[in-house]
């Protein structure tokens, strides 16, 4: 697998692929690409898109050949150099510094009660908005943002701040068009996060509270890295649980037979894992080839900028039968929505606790007759980050 050869096939170019089309609906595009090859050069995104499951998985497990430390990374410009753009051993040092904050024991001892309280707050807000309300704006987004705010330790900010920071920093990370306004908004948020971090660190050193900032405050991590990692975690810890939650609710409401089975047996975990397989909240992340190499029989040049398209890998028909269908009963196989290998999502258990253990079962229990608004269909969009954008719902 790691042998480099000179007989590899060349990689085809797909110059017909456009960003607006990917944003609208990437799945027919992946189907067309897949028929030809597992890797394509896509000029519109200036990357080699890797869409095959086997190829994506191989990249995740091989940081020697496929580095996360991309040159000219927009993420580094927008957020600073976080662990997500480092390889081991440097990555490992910072990941270890996160300690137990995002792990199951702390979730049980500390964060479950927080998610519980936040559920009650935003379920009340959804109810007050009344039937026809948008479940994303009234519930999923503020719930995810407030959960993250507390876990990270920003007692000097609001959930609205978290939402603004997250979106503008992410927009910077995806600012391929080099739009100066996008950079200006990202830079403003970056400064605001720096100020908030700088204010919290001494306070949390004096009075530790088990939050991420509190643990990093005494970890010896350099300030620049603390700031960069917080920005990355703000960008990576808000939209994803929000989108995973909204997409799961939407999928279940659109498949009443599956909803009945999930409800009666409490299969919320099946519903959630199948939903992030079906529509991966982070559908693409970058890697860079460290040398001329070969992947799935195709030649990759040194320095190649790769897009690991887990959103496509999760619909690889060689792994998942009838991959475009949402099916909670499909045989469980490892999906790649949380990534894999050393950058495997650090927040996977936080996402599961807040969405699977709390939000999903309670929403369906406490909003009887929850259903899609008949005249206002949900809107879905996004490429790198994809999910349900608005989800008008009714209940009895």
């Amino acid at each position, binding site marked *: 697998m790691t042998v480099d050869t000179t007989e590899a096939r060349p990689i085809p170019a797909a110059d017909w692929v456009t960003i607006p089309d990917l944003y609208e609906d990437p799945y027919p595009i992946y189907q067309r690409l897949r028929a030809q090859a597992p890797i394509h050069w896509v000029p519109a995104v200036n990357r080699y898109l890797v869409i095959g499951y086997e190829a994506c998985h191989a990249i995740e497990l091989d940081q020697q050949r496929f580095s996360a430390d991309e040159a000219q990374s927009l993420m580094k410009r927008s957020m600073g150099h976080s662990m997500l753009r480092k390889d081991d051993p440097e990555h490992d040092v910072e990941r270890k510094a996160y300690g137990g904050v995002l792990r*199951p024991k702390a979730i049980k001892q500390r964060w479950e009660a927080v998610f519980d309280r936040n559920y009650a707050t935003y379920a009340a807000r959804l109810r007050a908005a009344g039937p026809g309300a948008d479940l994303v704006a009234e519930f999923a987004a503020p719930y995810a943002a407030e959960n993250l705010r507390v876990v990270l330790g920003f007692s000097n900010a609001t959930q609205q701040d978290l939402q603004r920071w997250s979106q503008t920093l992410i927009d910077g990370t995806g600012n391929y068009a080099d739009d100066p306004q996008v950079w200006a908004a990202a830079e403003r948020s970056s400064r605001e996060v720096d100020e908030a971090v700088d204010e919290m660190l001494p306070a949390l050193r004096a009075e530790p509270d088990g939050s991420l900032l509190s643990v990093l405050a005494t970890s010896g991590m350099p300030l620049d890295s603390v700031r960069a990692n917080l920005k990355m975690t703000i960008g990576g810890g808000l939209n994803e649980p929000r989108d995973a939650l909204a997409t799961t609710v939407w999928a279940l409401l659109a498949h009443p037979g599956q909803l009945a089975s999930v409800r009666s047996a409490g299969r919320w975990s099946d519903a959630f894992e199948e939903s992030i397989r079906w529509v991966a909240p982070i559908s693409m992340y970058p890697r860079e080839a460290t040398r001329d190499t070969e992947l799935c029989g195709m030649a990759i040049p040194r320095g190649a900028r790769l897009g690991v398209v887990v959103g496509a890998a999760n619909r690889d028909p060689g792994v998942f039968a009838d991959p475009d269908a949402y099916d909670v009963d499909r045989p469980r196989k490892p999906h790649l929505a949380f990534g894999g*290998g050393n950058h*495997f999502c650090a927040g*996977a258990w936080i996402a599961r606790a807040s969405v699977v253990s709390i939000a999903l079962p309670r929403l369906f229990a406490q909003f009887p007759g929850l259903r899609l608004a008949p005249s206002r269909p949900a809107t879905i969009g996004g490429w790198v980050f994809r999910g349900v954008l608005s989800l008008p719902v009714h209940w009895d």
Partner: protein
Amino acid sequence: MPKVVFHHHGDTSTVVEADAGSNVMRAAVQNGVAGIVGECGGQAMCATCHVYVRESHLGALPPISEDEEEMLDCTAAPRDDRRSRLGCQLTLGEGLEEVEVDVPGAQL
């Protein structure tokens, strides 16, 4: 070379050799052993490398760290109080030249 025997449901088993310093999860993944996933690459973060270690090898195992302990409560197949371990935390070599494990029915 250290050796790992994976016993599967039914009567089949897979025997693999691995370098000292490797671990039970990595030995499985590198050799395509069915039933071991190892999503997180060995950070005691995913619990998809769960194995039941056979009795005769229990004495040779390293102690269970705090990270492994909490993750053993997150396995897909039921935890066995004595025999359940995370494959990625069982480093091969020194003291663990050979180990036999049963592969659980589910990792996800």
